[in-house]
Every structure is written in structure tokens, then in C-alpha cells.
């Protein structure tokens, strides 16, 4: 089976106040060191993996802010991957870009490297909220970035949005949604804000300087997103993701279908050969492990079949089409309906899931309560 490949670029111009991903302030010297290490890691896996494992159906360069790097660096990464792995002809190659970190020229160059999908971190189109989140751009820059990307020839664009922010009103959210739809991106991801422990934003909520979004309002925002985006011609295909027909994100589908993926770069995660592993989070440790000729893996976990089964269900339930029960049976030789019969019956009774056309899926009521459903399968 083809592999999903993820590359983590751990640099940002400035860290956002809600982010707890691994990222460092961009410095040219550090970026050069990172690039050299990443290329070693690509080579290491390139020689270690079997030919069959090196078929790449999706490549996702995320971060951090990949567009902190000069486009030449991104080009080097893609070239290196192409020489050690095989990118399928219809391979989806996505790069995350943040408005304010790339200009028209940069976008043209990006398109020429073979990148065919952009994921733009817009988050909001309200300047006040963008400032509160600690983003480096304002709403006008976000709109420009999309416009320029189109001009540069990108015909597959995702826009990331966040809702449920402190001080965000339903009207402001509605406006962001409407303007986003007016840009006509192929894909929209709308995430409810998660206040991660230790982030500056969470701290200011803990200190009482800001009020977290009330649950009822967040729920209304979620429902608003679903109805507005449907109306705008988007298909709601995952809890937080919406796409125009045929434009679902191939790379993320790899995670949701619990398939094989390889993550390179600091703090990247992989799932391969029945194991899941995570790279060193710290750039320095990541580099030194590689210079010692080792895989820079910090944690490893062997995934027992039972675990894989349970994960396949709760990940698959994130998709609105649900878990394909026939595919499940082909994969595990067992029927999910038998393995979890009492849980499924209970959830059906509570109106949280349904079985529709050989698929087990969340109901409308179950969507915002998805964790309660997942729990039954853990």
C-alpha cells in the first residue's frame, strides 16, 4: 500500500499563542542545520525501506511554517524525496503556508517545485481575533495570499479556520465563514479551538484575563459552519473538514483510515510495520541522533491488533461516511458489528451512531459528542 509522507518544518516567524506544536524562531543557520539533518533522515529511510514501501501517494509539508524556509530549500526537500522515494503521478503534494510569510514571487516558485496543493493558515478574518491569537498576518493579507496563490496557478487550496475563540461572537464567525466561501477554496478545515495546557492563550484564560468560549456558543458555531459551508457547496466529510467534490485531503485520509504513514523531521509521527513511533521533539537531539547515524526516534509503540482495531474504528468514525464495515472485515477478518455489538447497540439506542449502507457512522447528534462515542471503542 502507498505511504503518506509528512515532513515537519519546525520554524515560525513567531509562535502563535494557542500553538503547542514543536517550532522554533526562524534563523537561517538553524534552518540550514535542520535541512542537512532532514536530508540525512530521508536518505536513511530511503535505504532502509523496501521498494514497495517507498510509493508515496501523498506528501504533506507542514509545521511550523514551511514557508519560513526559502523556496529553494523546499525544492531541495522535494527533490531529495523524489530521488529516494517514488511519488505516484497523481500524488497530492501539500505545503502549509501562512499569509505574511510568502509573496507572489514565492508562490510562483512554489508552484514550479511540483507542489500542487496549498493549505493556508487563515484561522480568522477578524483582525482583532488574529491579533489575539498572535498571528503575524491580518485579514487583508490573508485575502491577498489566496488571490496570489490562484494567480500562481494553485487550483487546490485549503483554508484553515478556528472557531470558539475567546471574545468571538457568532456574527463574527458567520462573517469569516461567508468571506472564506467567497474565496472559493477547494477545501475548508474548521477547527474548534482547543486550549492546550501551558500555551500563552490557555494561561491567560486560567488567569481570568480572557473568557473561554461558552460550550453552547461553540456548539452553535459548529452548527453554523456545517450549514453555511454546505450551502456554499462544500461536502462535510470529516468532523472538522469540508471539501468540494473530489477535493478531500488525501493525506489526512491516510490518518483517518489508519493507514501507513511516515513522518520526518522533529516531533513527526509515523505508523509503519505495526509500530507507531515519534521523532525527537528537540531540534538539537533530532540532529545529533542523525549525525550518529541513528533513526531519530524518541518513542515507539507496538500496535497490537486489538489496538489497531479500536483505533481504526474511532478514527474512521471521524469521517461522516463512517467506518466501512465490509472493508473492516476484509482488513481484520472479523466483523466490527460482532466485536462491539453491545457498544454499537447502546450507541444506536442513544441516537449517536447509525448503520447506513454497510457503514457505521456518527449521527448528526453524535457529531459534536464524538468523544463519547469513541470511548466505547477504546
Amino acid at each position, binding site marked *: 500500500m502507498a505511504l503518506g509522507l509528512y515532513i515537519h518544518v519546525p520554524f515560525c516567524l513567531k509562535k502563535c499563542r494557542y500553538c503547542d506544536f514543536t517550532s522554533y524562531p526562524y534563523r537561517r543557520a538553524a534552518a540550514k542545520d535542520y535541512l542537512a539533518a532532514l536530508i540525512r533522515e530521508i536518505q536513511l529511510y530511503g535505504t532502509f525501506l523496501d521498494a514497495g514501501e517507498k510509493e508515496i501517494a501523498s506528501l504533506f509539508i507542514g509545521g511550523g511554517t514551511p514557508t519560513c524556509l526559502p523556496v529553494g530549500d523546499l525544492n531541495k526537500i522535494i527533490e531529495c524525496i523524489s530521488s529516494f522515494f517514488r511519488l505516484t503521478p497523481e500524488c497530492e503534494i501539500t505545503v502549509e503556508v501562512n499569509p505574511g510569510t510568502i509573496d507572489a514571487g514565492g508562490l510562483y516558485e512554489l508552484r514550479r517545485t511540483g507542489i500542487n496543493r496549498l493549505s493556508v493558515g487563515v484561522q480568522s478574518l477578524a483582525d482583532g481575533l488574529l491579533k489575539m491569537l498572535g498571528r503575524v498576518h491580518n485579514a487583508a493579507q490573508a485575502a491577498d495570499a489566496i488571490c496570489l496563490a490562484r494567480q500562481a496557478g494553485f487550483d487546490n487550496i485549503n483554508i484553515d479556520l478556528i472557531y470558539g475563540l475567546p471574545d468571538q461572537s457568532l456574527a463574527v464567525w458567520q462573517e469569516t465563514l461567508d468571506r472564506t466561501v467567497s474565496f472559493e477554496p477547494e477545501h475548508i478545515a474548521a477547527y474548534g479551538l482547543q486550549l492546550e495546557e501551558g500555551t500563552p492563550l490557555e494561561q491567560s484564560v486560567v488567569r481570568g484575563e480572557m473568557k473561554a468560549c461558552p460550550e453552547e456558543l461553540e456548539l452553535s458555531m459548529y452548527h453554523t459552519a456545517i450549514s453555511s459551508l454546505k450551502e456554499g457547496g462544500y461536502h462535510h466529510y470529516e468532523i472538522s473538514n469540508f471539501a468540494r467534490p473530489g477535493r478531500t485531503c488525501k493525506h489526512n485520509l491516510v490518518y483517518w483510515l*489508519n493507514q501507513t504513514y511516515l513522518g520526518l523531521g522533529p516531533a513527526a509521527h509515523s505508523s509503519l510495520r505495526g509500530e507507531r513511533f515519534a521523532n525527537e521533539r528537540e531540534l538539537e537531539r533530532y540532529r545529533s541522533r542523525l549525525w550518529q547515524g541513528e533513526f531519530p526516534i524518541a518513542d515507539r509503540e507496538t500496535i497490537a491488533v486489538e489496538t489497531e482495531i479500536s483505533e481504526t474504528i474511532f478514527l474512521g468514525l471521524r469521517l461522516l461516511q463512517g467506518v466501512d464495515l465490509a472493508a473492516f472485515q476484509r482488513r481484520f477478518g472479523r466483523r466490527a458489528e460482532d466485536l462491539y455489538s453491545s457498544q454499537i447497540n447502546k450507541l444506536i439506542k442513544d441516537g*449517536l451512531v447509525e448503520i447506513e449502507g454497510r457503514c457505521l457512522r456518527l449521527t448528526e447528534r453524535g457529531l459534536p459528542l464524538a468523544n463519547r462515542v469513541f470511548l466505547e471503542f477504546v
Partner: protein
Amino acid sequence: MEWEKDKIRNFCIIAHIDHGKSTLADRLLEYTGALSGREMTEQVLDQMDLERERGITIKMQAVRLKYQAGDGREYQLNLIDTPGHVDFSYEVSRSLAACEGALLVVDAAQGIEAQTLANVYLALEHNLEIITVINKIDLPSADPDRVKQEIEDIIGLDTSEAVMASAKSGIGVEEILEQIVTKIPAPGGQEQAPLRALIFDSHYDPYKGIIAYVRVVDGTVTNGMQVKMIATGKEFEVNEVGIFRPSPTSVEELRTGEVGYIAASIKNVKDCHVGDTVTDGKRPASVSLPGYRKVTPMVYCGLYPVDTVEYENLRDALEKLRLNDASLIYEPETSEALGFGFRCGFLGLLHMEIIQERLEREYNLSLITTAPNVVYRVTTTANTVFEIDNPSKLPPIGNIDFIEEPFVKAIIMVPKDYVGSVMELCQERRGIFVNMEYISISRVMLTYDLPLSEIIYDFFDQLKSRSRGYASLDYELAGYKQSELVRLDIMIAGEILDALSIIVHRDKAYHRGRGFVEKLRGLIPRQLFEIPIQASIGAKIIARETVKAVRKDVLAKCYGGDISRKRKLLEKQKEGKKRMKQVGSVEIPQEAFMAVLSVGD
């Protein structure tokens, strides 16, 4: 050491909690070389982890010491440890029965406290020789003369020979040992008579069966001997005789006056009662030693496994604990809400907490404990009288003529500055004033008759907080009195949860019902539907709260393939659910069942 009865001294140490009993025991062990300094861990006698953590003694221990006395002779001293908490006065009386003397330890700064008094009275009842030890004399706040005066005035003991000691720094230890030898009488008993040995404690060993701690009163018990338990009539062959020094050490025999243990492959708890007399199977004694009065539990509560399949494990665990704790009483009961469990009787709240903790810790059980209650006596309109140990067994109001509840005589010692607030507390708790007496110019002894149910309801904590920790309390059961009592029921999602019912005084019912439902609203996590919580007396609803339904519980993002993290988050959430009890369609956390205790008055 050769056996010579006149060189044996059996003694125990009695004290109010924190007056330094365990430290003194450690010093005696150290001084007599039972343990080298290096082997000394703090307070060796407190063997159970729980005892160490809480700094209290629960199970008594018996240690044999060798002491080279000032008269040039070597003595065998048997130290029997006693618990220091009011809940365990029953165990104190068991240790006392195996001794001829007691060290009364009193803190030189704090003076006599409520349990000092209670323990001394027990010791006097057993005709023990009392050696007074004023401990902690090196504290800056020590006032030994005042404390001696208190002991003379309140207890009536002569303190002219009281030992001035500091167990912590070793002051007075030798003098204590000398007084043990010179003042405490050697054991009596007849060497040639048929064996009679008192079982004063036991514990269960998975390899050896029940280990009985005995005090030989007459005759000798030897390895290989056929013995008989007088009360149960069961016979066993002794396969190990030993002493604690302090680790168990086997010996050939225990002779008249000695203290030690015997093992005889006794597997069944019921065959080896604490308080029973062991005699010679071939030449049995006709009369048993005075046993113990059967212990009456003061409080009862329900113990239920969170997971119903653990019922059998809980039963086995209770049975095992009972081997070590004769005062634990239990019988099976069924709750509509909680299923199969046990109604357990305890000596007091601390005892209950300890048992619960041991079950969870040592037997790895997850338990629901219902709020403790006392035993009520109900007289019906048909003029029948019966006792109930579970509020849900109270008959309908219409069938009740009157209800009586147990009262205790409580002795509270408190600095005079706090007398007002302590009296206020006693009034609030329906106390009846009996007496007030000055112990010294600055301290007062109050006597009250109080309903036992009020004492188990957060009384001790209140007492401590209203006296800044200076008040001490002891109590004993003083009979039943008629009270205006009603049953308060709790309905969750429309169903009465029998395990949450409490019996409460009519005047307090509204307030407590209100507080209880508020507490429950805070404790019961939001679920997929709205949950009404109501308190009622009979058919009348007196309070209502609602737990709102959860509307949103979803992890928005799947962090770049970090599925393990996501799974761990879910597992953690699930773990929290597992500790809850599913009652009907509602999940209720363990704490909810005890919540009524923390409702303020």
C-alpha cells in the same frame, strides 16, 4: 534466655494520639538492643504502610526485649503495643488483658487529653500497675509540673515517681526500664496446670495460616503439641511457636507468663477467635480465661464493588481482613441501586476509612462506600421493636410510633478560650450539657451527651477547627434516646437511590437535603441527558438541582498522525468513567455516596 517467671514483665504503652508512644517504643527497642541503630527504621512497631503514613497505630504488635537491669539480672520484657485512637479502644482493652503493667505517656506540653483519661480508666479496670511517663520534657513549651498536677487532680495517680522523659532524644529511657522491672509485678499463673493461653490478636499468613498472638497464663505450649480452642472446640497441632524480637523467631516453647505466637495451619478464621483460650488437647483446662466482650460496632456503611463481578473478591478480602481485625463485622446486603455488597460495622469513622483504604490498596478493589450511619431502634405502631443498620430499611412513616438513636457520653478537653465555641458546636449537634470542670486554670473538661450520628457527621473536624486543633475528644456509648428523626431520600433522574438515603433530625432535614443535592450536582458529571437531582421526605420534595446535559465533547483535530496521544486522551477519559457506578442510565462517581458528610451545617 532461660525461663524464669519472676524475671518476666508484660507491659503496654497507653497514650493520647501524638504524645509519643511509638517513638518511646522505638527507643526501648533500641536501648535493649532488639534492633541496632542501623536496622531502625522510624517506628518499627507500626508495620503497616497505612500506619506509617497516618502516623497512628492500628494493629498492636508484641515484641520481646532482653534487659540487663540495675540489679544485675537479665529480664524478659514483653512490650505489647496499643492503638491510640478512640475508634480502637476495643483493641486497647485486648492488649491490656495480656499485661500486668502499663506505661502512661503524657505529653509534657499538652497535658492529659481525652484519650489519656479513657485509656487510664481501661488500664485501672484491668488492675494494671501504671508507670507515669511525662514525655517531651525537652520541648520549650514543656510544663511538667503542671502536667503532674493535672494527672493527680483529674486521674488521681501519684506522680512523685513519674519519669521525666524525652523519647525523641532518649532521656529517661533507662529509668523507664528500671521502673518496669521494679514496679510491674511478674506474671502469675501456674506452671504445672493445664495450658491456658489467651489469644489477644491474630493475623493471617498466606503460608502458615492464622498466626495467633498469645499470652500464656498457665502451663506451657510447645511445638508439635495438640491444642484445643475452648470456645470453638476445634483442635490443631501446633507447628510453630515463636516470639517477636521484633521479627518473628521460632522457639521451642512458650511457658507460663510468656508472650509470643503460635501457628497451627489454621485456615479458617472462624476456628480462631480473638479472646478465645488455647488449651492442651490431651489435658484440657476446664475453665476458659475471661474473654472479651463481643465488640459492638458504632457505625455501619455499605461496601459495594464498583464492578459487580468483583463481589466475590470483596468477600474474600473482607474475610482476610477480619483475620487481622476481629472488630470488623460484615454481612451481605443488596441495594437496588448498587447490587450485591456488604453492610459493614466499624468501631468508628477512622476504622471505616482504614478498612476501605486497605481493601482498595491491598486487594486492589474499587469500592463504593455509602455514608456511615448508626443503628436506630424503631418502635412500630403495632408495638414491635427492631433495630436497623441501614436507612433504607426504615419502615414507612405511618407505621412508625417512634425512633430512638444511640447517644454517647462525650468528654472534651479544651483550653478555656475555646470553651464557648465548642459548647456552641455541641448545641448545634443536639448535645445535652452534663458537666464542666476545670482541669487546670487554663483548661476545661466538658461532658456532653451527644447523638452518635452527630459525632460521625464531621464532628471531629469541626471540633478541631473551632478549637484551633487544641480540643481532644473521647466518648463511650451511653444508651438510646427517642428523637424526631426522618428519612431523607435522594432521587436521581426520578429514581430513589436507596444507597443515598440518610436518617436525619427533622429540624435539619431541609438544610441537609438542600446541601446534599447541591453537592451532588457538583459531583455528578454531565451526561448525554439532563439529570434532575431531588431530595425528598416521604412524598414531599424539599430540594432540587439539575445536572445539565453535555452538548459538545469532541477533539477537533487529529494532530498530524499523533494517534497515540489521542488514544491516551480517550483512555484517560474512559478510566474516569470506570471509577463511576452505573445506576440506571446515570453514571455516579464514588465520592457522591459519601458526599452528605461534607455538607456544611
